[in-house]
C-alpha cells in the first residue's frame, strides 16, 4: 500500500474463524511493521478480540496463514505465541488475583537458574526495573487483589514488557481504565517501544487516541477488514463511516420528552471500597446517562440500587418512599430493575429457553398456587417477543443460541414483564451488532416517552450524548459532575471522567 513501508514483521492472510452458528472472522488480512503502531478499529463484536486470541495462540484459525519475519508460523498454544515474540496486554480479567505482582508478570515464562529452578530474585529485580517506568509505587510482592483496577492494568502492561524477545505487542484497549496521567505515561511507553523497533497493534475505541499515537489503521466490520491505510491520511468521519457502514446520526432515534416528577432520589450513597457520596435524582420519562472510565464505580452503584451489594450509608427514595433493598427481589418489588453489563453471566440464564427467561422474575405473579401456567407464560413471551422485535426460530429455543442483540432483548423483555418504574441499563449495547443496537436505542427512547424512567450506564460517548437527557460523570467511585445534555460536549465529559479538569488545549 505504501512504497516507503519497511519490511513487515507480521503478515496475516485470509484468516477465518467460525464458532457454532457465527462466522467471527472471514478473509482477514493484517500487516504489522516494526517500529510502527497499527490501530485496529471496529465496533464491539467486529471480531477484534477473536483476532487477538488467534494471534496470541488462544484460538486456532480455521483457515489462512500467519507469516512472522518471513516464515509461516502456527501458534498451537499461548506459550508458542509468547515464545515466538508475540505478547499481549489483555484486560484485567486475565490476571491472577491471588498471586503476587511478580508472579503475574512472569507466569508462563518464568526465569530459571542453572538448576532449572525458578529464579525469584532475578524476576523480582526485573519487575522493579520494568515497574520503575510504569508505576514505581507498586511493590513486586503485593498480591494483585490488593490493587485497584487501574494498577492491575499497569501490571498487565508490565507483563507484556517483561518478555525481552518480544517483536509484537498487542494492546487491547489499554487506556480504558486509566486516568489522564496514566494514559500519558502509557503513550510514553508506546513511544519507547516504537523506538526499540517493536511492532504494536493498538486496539481502541477512542479516535483522539488513535490520531495521537497510531501510524496506521485497519478497520474491521462484521469480521472482515473494510479498510486500512496511514492515519495521517485519514480523518474521524472517514473512520467512523468505515466502522459502522453508515453515518452516526440515525443511530440515535431519541424522542424528546418533557420529564415529569421525581421518581428516584439517591442521597449520599456510599460503600466502603466501591463508591462514596453518590447523589442524583431521576424524573419520570427521563434518560439519565452515567459516563466514566471502565472501573469508575458506575456498575457498582447500580448494583447497590438493585440490592446486590449493600451500601454503608445514604438513602434511596422511590416516589418519595425510602427503600433499603437488601436483595434484588426487594428492588424489583419497589419497581427498580437492572439489565446488567455481563449479559451471559448476570443477565440471562443461557441454557434455559426464551420463555423461561422472560417469565423468571414474574413466576410468583403468573403461577397458580405455585403451579406453572405454560399457556400464560407463552402469552407473555409472545407479547414481549413482538414488542422487542425478537429474532428466534421458536420461543422454547435456549437463549444461548441467540445472537448477543437478541439475548439482550430477552433480558430487557424479562424486566418489562415485571412492569417496573425505573429500568437501569448497564452498557446496554456492548457487544451487540449494529442492527440490534439501534433497536435497543429506539426501544429505550420509546419506553422513556411512555413514562418509564431510564438509567443508562455507558462508556460510549456517542451513545451517552445521543440518548441521555442528563449525564452523571463518575471517576474513581465519586461523582465528578452532572450535566445537561444541551450544555456539555464530549471533551468536557472526558475531562471530568479522566480527572484532567484543569482546562488545557486538547
Amino acid at each position, binding site marked *: 500500500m505504501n512504497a516507503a513501508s519497511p519490511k513487515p514483521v507480521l503478515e496475516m492472510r485470509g484468516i477465518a474463524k467460525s464458532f457454532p452458528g457465527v462466522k467471527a472472522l472471514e478473509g482477514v488480512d493484517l500487516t504489522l511493521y516494526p517500529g510502527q503502531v497499527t490501530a485496529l478499529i471496529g465496533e464491539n463484536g467486529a471480531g477484534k478480540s477473536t483476532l487477538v486470541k488467534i494471534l496470541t495462540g488462544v484460538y486456532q484459525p480455521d483457515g489462512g496463514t500467519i507469516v512472522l519475519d518471513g516464515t509461516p508460523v502456527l501458534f498451537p*498454544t*499461548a506459550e508458542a505465541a509468547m515464545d515466538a515474540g508475540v505478547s499481549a496486554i489483555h484486560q484485567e480479567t486475565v490476571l491472577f488475583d491471588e498471586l503476587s505482582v511478580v508472579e503475574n508478570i512472569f*507466569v508462563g*515464562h518464568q526465569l530459571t537458574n542453572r538448576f532449572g*529452578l525458578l529464579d525469584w530474585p532475578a524476576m523480582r529485580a526485573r519487575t522493579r526495573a520494568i515497574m520503575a517506568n510504569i508505576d514505581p509505587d507498586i511493590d513486586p510482592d503485593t498480591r494483585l487483589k490488593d490493587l485497584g*483496577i487501574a494498577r492491575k492494568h499497569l501490571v498487565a502492561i508490565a507483563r507484556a514488557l517483561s518478555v525481552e524477545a518480544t517483536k509484537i505487542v498487542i494492546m487491547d484497549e489499554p487506556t480504558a481504565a486509566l486516568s489522564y496521567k496514566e494514559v500519558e505515561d502509557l503513550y510514553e511507553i508506546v513511544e519507547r517501544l516504537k523506538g526499540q523497533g517493536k511492532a504494536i497493534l493498538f486496539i481502541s475505541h477512542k479516535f483522539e487516541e488513535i490520531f495521537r499515537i497510531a501510524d496506521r489503521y485497519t478497520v474491521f466490520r462484521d469480521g472482515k477488514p473494510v479498510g486500512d491505510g496511514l492515519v495521517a491520511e485519514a480523518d474521524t468521519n472517514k473512520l467512523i463511516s468505515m466502522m459502522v457502514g453508515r453515518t452516526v446520526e440515525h443511530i440515535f432515534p431519541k424522542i424528546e420528552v418533557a420529564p415529569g416528577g421525581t421518581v428516584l432520589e439517591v442521597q449520599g450513597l456510599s460503600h466502603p471500597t466501591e*463508591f462514596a457520596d453518590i447523589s442524583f435524582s431521576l424524573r419520570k420519562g427521563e434518560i439519565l446517562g452515567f459516563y466514566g472510565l471502565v472501573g469508575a464505580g458506575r456498575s*457498582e452503584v447500580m448494583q447497590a440500587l438493585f440490592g446486590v451489594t449493600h451500601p454503608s450509608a445514604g438513602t434511596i427514595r422511590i416516589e418519595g418512599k425510602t427503600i433499603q433493598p437488601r436483595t434484588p427481589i426487594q428492588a424489583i418489588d419497589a419497581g427498580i430493575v437492572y439489565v446488567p453489563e455481563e449479559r451471559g453471566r448476570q443477565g440471562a440464564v443461557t441454557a434455559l429457553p426464551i420463555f423461561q427467561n422472560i417469565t423468571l422474575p414474574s413466576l410468583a405473579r403468573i403461577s397458580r398456587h405455585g403451579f406453572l401456567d405454560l399457556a400464560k407464560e407463552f402469552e407473555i413471551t409472545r407479547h414481549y417477543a413482538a414488542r422487542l422485535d425478537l429474532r428466534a426460530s421458536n420461543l422454547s429455543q435456549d437463549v444461548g443460541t441467540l445472537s448477543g442483540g437478541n439475548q439482550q432483548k430477552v433480558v430487557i423483555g424479562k424486566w418489562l414483564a415485571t412492569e417496573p418504574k425505573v429500568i437501569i441499563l448497564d452498557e446496554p449495547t456492548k457487544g451487540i451488532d449494529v442492527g440490534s443496537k439501534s433497536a435497543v436505542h429506539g426501544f429505550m427512547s420509546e419506553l422513556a416517552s411512555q413514562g418509564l424512567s431510564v438509567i443508562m450506564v455507558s462508556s460510549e460517548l456517542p451513545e451517552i450524548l445521543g440518548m441521555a437527557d442528563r449525564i452523571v460523570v463518575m471517576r474513581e467511585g465519586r461523582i465528578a459532575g452532572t450535566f445537561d445534555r444541551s450544555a456539555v460536549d464530549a471533551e468536557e465529559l472526558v475531562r471530568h471522567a479522566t480527572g484532567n479538569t484543569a482546562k488545557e488545549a486538547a
Partner: protein
Amino acid sequence: MMAQFLKSRDVMLAGVILLLLVGIGIINPRFVQPGNLVEVFNDSSILIMVALAQMLVILTKCIDLSVSANIALTGMIVAMLNFYYPEIPVAALIAIAIIAGGMLGAINGLFIWKLGIPSIVVTLGTMSVYRGSVFLLSGGAWINAHQMSDAFKAVPRTVILGLPVLGWIGILTVLLIAVFLKMTRLGRSLYAAGGNPTAAVYAGIDVGRSRFYAYTIGGAIAGLAGYLWVSRYAVAYVEIAQGFELDTVAACVIGGISIAGGIGSVVGGVLGALFLGIVKNALPVIHISPFWQMAISGAVIIVAVVINARSERKVGRLILKEAQVHA
C-alpha cells in the same frame, strides 16, 4: 510487617496447635515430652504426605477422593509381591509402589484432562473401582505380619538420629513438595490453573495438563504411602485406610487450602495434618474414647471451612483511592 505476620493463617494455626499442646500437657504432661512428640510426628507422617498429595490436586480446583483406595491397592500389590516373591528387594518394591500409585493417579488425571469430567465424579468412581480391585487381587484374604519379609517390615521402623525412617520420609516429601511448588514452573502452574483457569490459558498454561500432573504426582505419593502403611502396620487387607481421604481433605481445609483452588501453602497443609495427628494421638492420653475422633475431626473441618469462608469473602472491588493498599 509484624502485625501482618501474626495475622497470617499459618502463624495463627501454629498458635492454635501450641495452645492445644499446652492444654493437653496440663492434663497429661507425658504427652508433651520430646520423645512422645517425635512419636506423634512419626505417627502423623503418612497423613502429612497424603494431605500434601491432596493439596496438589485441590490447588488446581479439583479433589481426589480415591487416594485412600490408591493406598489400599498399592499396599496390597507390594504386600502380595513380597509374599509370593520374597527375593524382590525392598527398594524395588518401593519403586513399584510409587509407580503403581502414580499410574492410578494418572488414570484419574487422564479422565479429567482428556474428557473434562468433573474430578469429584471421576474420583468417586475410581475410589470404588480401586477399592474393589483390592478384593479382586487378594480374594478378600489378608496378608499378615508373618507373611511379610523382615526387610519389608523394617524400613519404616529403622531409627536414624532419633527419628524412624517413616518420619524422615515424611520430612523429605514435605521439602520436595515445597521446592516443587515454589521453585518450578509446573508447581506454579498448579496455582495459576486453579486460581483463574481462564487467565491460565492466556498465560500459556494447559490447565488440563497441570491437573494431570497434580494427580500423577499425588498418586505417586499415595503409592509410597501405601507401602509405608502396610509395612508399618504389618498387615494388608481390603479395608485399609478406608475413609482416610476425608482426613486428607480435612487436613487441607484446616490448613487454609481453598477448596476453590489457587490458594494454599505447604506449611498450612503440614500444620493441618499435624493438628489432626495430635488430636488423634492425644485422645487416649487424656482419657477420651477413640470413638470421639470422627466427630471431632468433623467439627474441626466445619469450624475451619467457616473461618476460611469468612476470610475469603469479598469486600467488593477496590475503586476508591483511600481503600487501596499503598505499598
